[in-house]
């Protein structure tokens, strides 16, 4: 099977044969819910970190008994899958206080007595700085201790160092693949990149690295996106629907960079491979990486990163998507729109939708209208340049 087909198949399913092989080899599979959960610790315990997902969900009927329609559809779909037993292959799940919806999943999961037995809440601060890093280190210690106690393993400093190296390698390969979107023609589309990230977060890290090497050599040997497409950078929290991204691509857009949880937020950092590994992990996760709107004191840095990405990737526009009832992204959109009006970042299109909610026709109409505006603006800018004989500046 060709590599991209394999990637698509892994991305589209909850379980896959790499996980089955790992289980047969005696490795435990530990699910985790957020990109702030340090997968290095799970890996260092000898387990497979598995990024939780709602793919393949067909409804929220069971979860609706616990949640209300005002709660996030991603959370309801994921919890519904848990109640149906779709995550029966997991040996544990690590939750995080990412938002009010996901943190209640930890509660509902425990309350409903849905397996597995090992359920752990990882606390990540909402701020950067010294206190936050020390708080994150404490959380790493708690998670490590919980894994050790529950599974009777020992996580040594050396184990953590080895895992950091391996995870850095995976992040490096993902970044290298991501770089192939920078040029005038993008070698890998946004929807493909999303599939890749979804696939590599659902297999053992070692396997992820070899899959990524195959993907990189595959994309290097093929053509890129047509020049002249509207180049967009896209931000969202939960994004697990490659078909949804294809709406943009089919409308003449190319997603040249992203800020998804299942995207660059996962690999935009690396962890120092020397020194105290816990502190190195904390510094890595709270250092240079692109943060999510849950980090309260980091908007200016996020904004600078978006502006930088827009320049680096020659983006024409920014698209921000939020799931309904998400306060975090709701206010982030407000801020980004304001900054766009000031000219700090390119024009912003904000889309609100439900996870696995369909409505592709409506969304596509909005995308097409937005792209038309962008193209018209470009033409007008060209006219101004020609008439004024000034240098053309692309934001």
């Amino acid at each position, binding site marked *: 099977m060709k590599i991209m087909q394999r990637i698509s198949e892994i991305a589209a399913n909850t379980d896959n044969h790499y996980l089955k092989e790992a289980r047969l080899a005696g490795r435990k599979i530990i699910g985790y819910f957020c990109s702030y959960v340090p997968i290095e610790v799970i890996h260092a315990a000898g387990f497979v970190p598995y990024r939780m997902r709602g793919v393949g969900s067909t409804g929220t009927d069971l979860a609706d008994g616990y949640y*209300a329609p*005002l*709660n996030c559809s991603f959370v309801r779909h994921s919890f519904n899958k848990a109640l149906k037993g779709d995550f029966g292959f997991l040996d544990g799940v690590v939750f995080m206080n990412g938002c*009010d919806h996901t943190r209640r999943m930890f*509660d*509902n999961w425990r309350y409903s007595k849905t397996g597995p037995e090992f359920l752990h809440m990882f606390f990540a601060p*909402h*701020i950067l700085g010294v206190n936050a890093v020390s708080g994150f280190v404490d959380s790493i210690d708690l998670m490590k201790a919980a894994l050790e106690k529950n599974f009777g393993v020992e996580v040594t400093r050396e184990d953590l160092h080895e895992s950091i190296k391996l995870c850095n390698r995976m992040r490096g390969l993902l970044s290298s693949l991501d770089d192939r979107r920078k040029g005038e023609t993008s070698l890998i589309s946004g929807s493909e990149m999303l599939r890749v990230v979804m696939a590599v977060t659902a297999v053992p890290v070692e396997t992820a690295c070899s899959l990524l090497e195959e993907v990189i050599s595959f994309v290097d040997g093929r053509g890129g996106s047509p020049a002249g497409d509207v180049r967009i950078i896209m931000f969202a929290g939960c994004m697990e629907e490659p078909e949804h991204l294809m709406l943009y691509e089919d409308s003449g857009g190319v997603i040249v960079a992203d800020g998804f949880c299942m995207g660059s937020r996962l690999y935009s950092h690396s962890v120092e491979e020397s020194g105290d590994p816990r502190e190195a992990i904390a510094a890595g996760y709270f250092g240079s990486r692109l943060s999510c*709107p849950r980090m309260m004191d980091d908007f200016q840095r996020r904004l600078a990163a978006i502006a930088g990405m827009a320049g680096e990737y020659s983006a024409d526009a920014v698209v921000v998507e939020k799931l309904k009832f998400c306060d*975090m992204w709701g206010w982030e959109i407000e801020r980004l729109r304001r900054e766009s009006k000031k000219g700090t970042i390119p024009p912003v299109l904000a889309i609100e939708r439900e996870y696995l909610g369909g409505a592709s026709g409506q969304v596509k109409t909005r995308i097409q209208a937005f792209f038309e505006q962008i193209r018209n603006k470009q033409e007008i800018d060209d006219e101004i340049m020609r008439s004024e004989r000034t240098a053309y500046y692309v934001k």
Partner: protein
Amino acid sequence: MNARINPGPKRTEQLKEYQIAKYLYYILIRGYYIVLLILPYSVISFIARYILHPFIFKKETRFNKYLRSALLWLGGGLNRAVDYRAHLPIMRILLEYLKHNIEPIKRRSKPLVYLGWCVSPEFLRAFDVHYIIPEAYSVTGSWMGQDVSIHLLETVEAEGGSIESCSASKFGGGAYFTGQMPDPDIIVTSSHPCDSGVSFYPTVENLTGAPMFVLDTPYDTTEGAYRYFEKNLRSMIKFIEKNTGQKMDWNKLKASCEELNRTNFYLQELTAMTRAIPSPVSSQLLTVAWAMKLMGSGSPHLTEMARRMYEASKKRLERGEGWVKDEKIRVIWWDVPIAYISLYPWLEKEFGAMVVGGDLMGRCNTPYVDTSTEESMMLSLAKVHLHASMVRNVRGTYELFMDEFEQIISEYSGDCFIFVGHNGCKHGWGYGRIKKDVCKRMGMPALHMSSDYSDCRNTSEESLKKQITDFFVGNGLA
């Protein structure tokens, strides 16, 4: 970097800059002296209440909209003249707080701090600063009528603010965009209790350009969590000192904490008194006390308010008298929508129904501040913050909520439970099943309604009253 807009014509009249604070301040000053004159003569205040009653009680109309809500907050729904005595210090607290709004408008002599509503203002009392709590507009903003509330909310939504956010945050945003608050010098807020505050304050920071400090909230309730929060509090002091050029006065902080201890003693006693059958205390007093604590924690006026409430209630308790003459239904109600403070007197008058145990906000269950050393004071203040109303119940796992909830059900002899799911409280909606199961297990009829903390567009007062009436009748309680 001021990004205020002209909100354009709305359904209500255009709000002038700083209109809300100015209006309330001048009305309150006049009202204060009137109350001062009539208070010694309880017969006069009782008659005044009866004259005002038809204008404030039933519903908001074009004739009563400018003061209905304010009068209700200031005791318009109280049954007895003796309880009005507590409302004189309430006016003092409000005046003191509104001065923080008014003085920076007139003359910027001190640094101005925007203070998140879940950060207790004791620390700021130890500095020479003014402070404004943006979310407090969810209380005071509605005092000029529901159309002013709607105007504030619609303005922030028109600006692109998150529509599903808690209306307390949206009121703060609306107040900023309509020019009700002068720009701050610094912002101090916290990452509790919910996503709304977490997501709203970066916008305030972005709009005003003022440096912001965030107190990060731990998820659990362990000694380590208190220590973590204490470290945050110490960093906050350094931040305020650096950005205001002032040194914190530890003696002033100690004095505020001692005052807070005195206040909390009375409020905790009042909360506990609602266990008695009949209950000598209306939870409306506790809700009002919560709002006053929000604005004036550490103030001697707050202690005076609580003491007066306590003394009047204690006398009733000793006489075996209830707040209402004939108490028929005891309601456990968490998350009373504060936009409808009128629901308390309505329940009491129509059904003889008393809310017991205090609502989520008003229920006082705060640790004592040990002021013996700086260290003990800081650690205690960390505990005070993490055990504040709402914060202690919703920032962490569901047990933090349910354990206290079950305790209230078993100790306060409730006949039924009412839960109002506010739009912004996603965490509350997220454990709906657990809450329902607790009620079922404890044999308690429960009404779950959808409303909003202070957005009257979500559910009308009439609709809430109808649902409650149907619930009481349907369960044979009325």
